[in-house]
């Protein structure tokens, strides 16, 4: 069956033709045939996030073929993608839903890593690079939201960039840099488009390569036993039980992807991406809301002074990114890490409450 991939003894046909020239066999073997702990449980969350990024690259490239990034044409081009271009509504709605699911599965991925303490030695750098991936993914959401140039897009960006302007000291400069001028205008749309389709994809692809390289080098964490550390006596434990990454793990992963693809098409069909009236810089609509994943910050800004509301989320993200630097205990089981787990639960409850109230009209 398919287990022959990468075997180096001269295979025939096209595979053999390439193999005699490039000798990729050993490389693919090293890539695919890694043993992973039998009790590793990733719930395929990182892989699903990866799959969703792939979907975004494909659907985003397609959308870019018809989209025009100017205030005069953006709205009409989105309208025509939705109504004129065959399957345009599907491609656009899948892009919309995959963006939301990517944030969701990314959050679950981080939560899994946290609960299993997979950020501890030796995986601190994987977590750190992950922090970069998280920021970039949020950046995708923020810049992509403006592109349809409808009322919601426009005013959410006015408010969003205004919030960035509230950062102490660098706020005003940041505001100007984001908007490309004093107001949200043609310059802003051009910038957001460039960042959304060029800068962020390249950054994400690069960091993702590092992230996966690190995971490959270190293997998956075992959620039951701490990693043995150099210079310390290894704790007593049964022999490591392993299973092959290929094909066992990959097969399950692909099944998960298939289910996610089905979910995407169903969501896109039942709840297609909508479009509000065209952006009007002179009329602010009532009840402008950001995407659901910004609602907590949005609500926080309603109840605390602006500086606090801006600084608190930034500080929180920084603390999360450097978490492995100060949480250096060896324990990995949640019940042996009561403080870490309590902090996480507290944070989740706070986010849930803020999001809930933020969603109220």
């Amino acid at each position, binding site marked *: 069956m398919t287990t022959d991939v990468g075997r180096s003894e001269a295979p025939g046909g096209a595979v053999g033709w390439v193999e005699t020239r490039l000798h990729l066999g050993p490389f693919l073997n090293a890539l695919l045939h890694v*043993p992973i702990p039998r009790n590793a449980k990733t719930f395929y969350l990182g892989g699903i996030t990866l799959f969703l990024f792939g979907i975004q690259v494909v659907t985003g490239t397609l959308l870019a073929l018809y989209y025009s990034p100017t205030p005069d044409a953006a709205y009409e081009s989105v309208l025509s993608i939705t109504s004129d271009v065959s399957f345009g509504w599907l491609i656009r709605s899948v892009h919309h839903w995959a963006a939301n699911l990517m944030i969701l599965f990314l959050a679950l991925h981080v939560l899994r890593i946290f609960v299993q303490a997979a950020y501890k030695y030796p995986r601190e750098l994987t977590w750190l690079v992950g922090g970069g991936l998280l920021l970039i993914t949020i950046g995708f959401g923020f810049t992509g939201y403006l592109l349809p140039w409808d009322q919601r897009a426009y005013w959410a960006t006015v408010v969003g960039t205004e919030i960035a302007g509230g950062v102490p000291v660098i706020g005003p400069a940041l505001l100007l840099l984001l908007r490309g001028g004093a107001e949200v205008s043609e310059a802003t749309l051009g910038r957001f488009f460039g960042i959304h389709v060029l800068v962020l994809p390249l950054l994400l692809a690069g960091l993702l390569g590092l992230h996966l390289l690190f995971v490959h080098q270190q293997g998956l964490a075992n959620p039951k036993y701490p990693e*043995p550390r150099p210079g310390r006596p290894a704790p007593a434990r049964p022999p490591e*039980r392993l299973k092959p990454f290929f*094909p066992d793990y990959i*097969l399950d992963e692909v099944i998960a992807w298939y289910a996610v693809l089905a979910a995407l098409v169903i969501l896109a069909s039942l709840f297609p991406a909508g479009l509000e009236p065209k952006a009007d810089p002179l009329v602010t609509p009532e009840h402008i809301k950001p995407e659901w994943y910004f609602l907590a910050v949005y609500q926080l800004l309603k109840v605390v002074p602006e500086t606090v509301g801006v600084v608190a989320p930034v500080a929180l993200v920084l603390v999360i990114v450097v978490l492995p630097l100060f949480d250096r205990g060896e324990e990995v089981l949640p019940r042996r890490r009561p403080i870490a787990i309590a902090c996480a639960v507290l944070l989740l409850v706070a986010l849930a409450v803020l999001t809930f109230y933020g969603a109220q009209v």
Partner: protein
Amino acid sequence: MSEGLPPVLEEGGDRTVAGVRDGLGAASGAGGTGGLDRRRFIRWLLGFSIVSSLAMIVTPIIGFLIPSRTATAGVGGRVLAGTLESLPVGSGAVVAVGAKPAVVVNTSGGVKAYSAICTHLGCIVAWDAALTMIVCPCHDGRFSPATGAVVSGPPPAPLPPLTAVVEGSDIYIVTG
């Protein structure tokens, strides 16, 4: 893994490809009576699933890439092409109607309008006041201002007529 006990690599076990493979091996030995044993059947099913999944993904992508015919036609309606003052009898002009050019000529027989896309190889024709004819600059195709018919040159067909309407002194081209 440094504690000395060797790691154990377990193939098979719960739901794995290895498990499926073993099961198939056992089954195909016993039940290979017809031409199609279970292993070949499953392999065929797998191939079919992969091909149909790919088709399902590629179809909307290809459909999306094919430009829609209606998208460029523009909306129907009226386009102001000029006035009787700007376009006196004996003169003509090329104007944009949506995304497409039209040539408008004020002839002694009334205001006429045609598509300005030459029927030969697609250059844009112009009004030649000296020749009093619609002339294509590319290969000197010439068209009659009164009917759009080919007078001379390589164009194989007359220019398609458009509807020109005069209201007061305004000249409109009506499409759609």
